[in-house]
């Protein structure tokens, strides 16, 4: 069962890039060497898992998403979510952002579904960011959430295809 694990955020804006750190740790757990660059675009054929990092979600990712059975979206939030490591089963529902180019994971799934009439079973793992200054180092509070997020993602991925 093919899985896409996609992280997004700005690695240079401190906790906004937490998804990169989560992705990096997750890749190591899958036996892949730690990436030394912001660009992560790696397919592990043994596990059928594709790791991908983006600055933000873009509509044309719909084509790529339609090829997967499962997708894990990893991003940062600024405290607006109910928990520090927020876990959500996603649905293909479009929400517009009136003034910005922001595209949510739900919206991307909606586009995927409308164009390709299918979409991967997906979750969002959103990690709380505390500091958004110009740095590639996570704040200590956000850094402490990385392992928790990785564990949640691992658990979800291991449970897929069993039912």
């Amino acid at each position, binding site marked *: 069962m093919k899985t896409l694990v996609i992280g*997004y*955020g*700005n*690695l*240079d*804006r401190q*906790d*906004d890039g937490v998804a990169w750190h989560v992705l990096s740790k997750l890749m190591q757990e899958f036996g892949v060497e730690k990436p030394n660059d*912001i*660009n992560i*675009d790696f397919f592990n054929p043994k596990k059928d898992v594709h790791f991908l*990092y*983006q*600055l*933000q979600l*873009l*509509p*044309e990712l*719909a*084509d790529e998403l339609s090829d997967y059975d499962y997708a894990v979206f990893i*991003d*940062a*939030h*600024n405290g*607006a979510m109910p928990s520090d490591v927020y876990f959500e089963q996603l649905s293909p529902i*479009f*929400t*517009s*952002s*009136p*003034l*910005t*180019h*922001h595209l*949510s994971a739900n*919206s991307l799934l*909606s*586009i995927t579904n*409308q*164009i390709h009439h299918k979409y991967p079973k997906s979750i969002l793992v959103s990690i709380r*960011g505390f500091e*958004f*200054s*110009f740095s590639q180092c996570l704040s200590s509070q956000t850094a402490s959430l990385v392992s928790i997020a990785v564990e949640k993602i691992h658990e979800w991925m291991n449970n897929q295809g069993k039912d």
Partner: protein
Amino acid sequence: MVAQKITIEPVTRIEGHAKVTIRMNEAGKVDHAYLHVNEFRGFEKFCEGRMVFEMPLITPRICGICPVSHHLASAKAGDDILGATPPRPASLLRELMHMGQVVQSHGMHFFELGGPDLILGFDADPEIRNVAGLLAADAGLTVRAVNLRKWGQEIIRILGGRRIHPNFAIPGGVNKALTKEERAMILAGYDEAIETIKIGLKIMYDWAEKNAEDINKFAVLKSGYFGLVNEDDALELYDGKIRLIDSTGKQLEKFDPRNYLDYIAEHVENWSYLKFPYYKKMGFPQGVYRVGPLGRCNNSKSITTPLANEELKRFKALNGGKPVENTLHYHTARLIETMYAAEHVKVLLDDPDILSKDILNTCRNPKSSGVGVIEAPRGTLIHHYWMNENQQLTKVNLIVSTGHNNWAMSEAVDSVAKTYITGPEVPEGILNRVEAAIRAHDPCLSCSTHAVGQMPMIIEVKDSSDTIVKTIKRD
């Protein structure tokens, strides 16, 4: 009646975020509407101390939507400060990447951000007034739109070698030549791109015909127009002279972009962190100007590619040859530029130098400061660097397109609010028009940070004593 204030603002704000305040008078009419941009120029400080050659890799990180514009403006500033003029094939390849950026950015704006207002209607249910609604209304068109953007992105990926943070342009040239196979891959998408843009233009003109009343009362502003042109005053997006015309179309200046500080000054208002650039000789506000697609199409006498040039003639006829003042025609101008960018891709690919391996000038003749200017999709982007003898940056000045258009966006918001809001009860469709006044300029307000880029908006209705009497939240 008690005077009221309506505020539209994001819940959280960080660099570049904005809010709108609409102040109502005691008669229930709009007294004035303000666009406040809470800009923090942290990125310029962040760059100080970095080596000049690093800048084309660092500056794309400012923005996830137009990283290529910063990448290329930065490389151009590097060429200038290091005295390393790129060989012609390198300039062609940079320009090719830039055209890919213009196609993907403009394509996304028209079909996915601005388009739903036009195709589905300002007053359509907000649940469907988006790209998903477009898909439901016309799936074929939306797939075409996604493919258009994808084509632009593919050009960037082929040249930049990776999906994000292109590693391509460097001071003195580029670090990768184009292969015959890559050229063929890009050309394969050309015909469909042209057809999609033609469809977009037809949609725009059909809509304009049916909605002339809206167009003619929606933020029709008098201003100057500013942007790059070539030696014949034709549209130029990568390199040229800056031309500034007044509201009647008369040329005020045509100057080397390196000298921008001789012509531009910035006005400060106490209600916005973002400064208001203006033409120095005329002062503020007489010297305000607009940039971006409307600014450039007004500013250019012609376009060097045939289909776009025909569209420009049609555009210029809208106001009898005088500058087109209607903010909603930003959309028309955007599509004309998309056509130019797509056509220009083929012009570049047909150039005999495009496959050349002569792509880097390694000679250096450094000086203490250098300027790189490019027409980003949203308008003129200026990178100005100062460096020490070790080629470390001591000062950085970035003037981004959204900054140039600050006055235009503020005036558009005020004008639309005054035109459409007739009392404290603001229907959703009217609120959407206020947002559309900003959206028409395609500003880049929150791209640099994803987590706070979602910008939910709160509309607060306040009475004359600043007490909130009503709150509306939009996610």
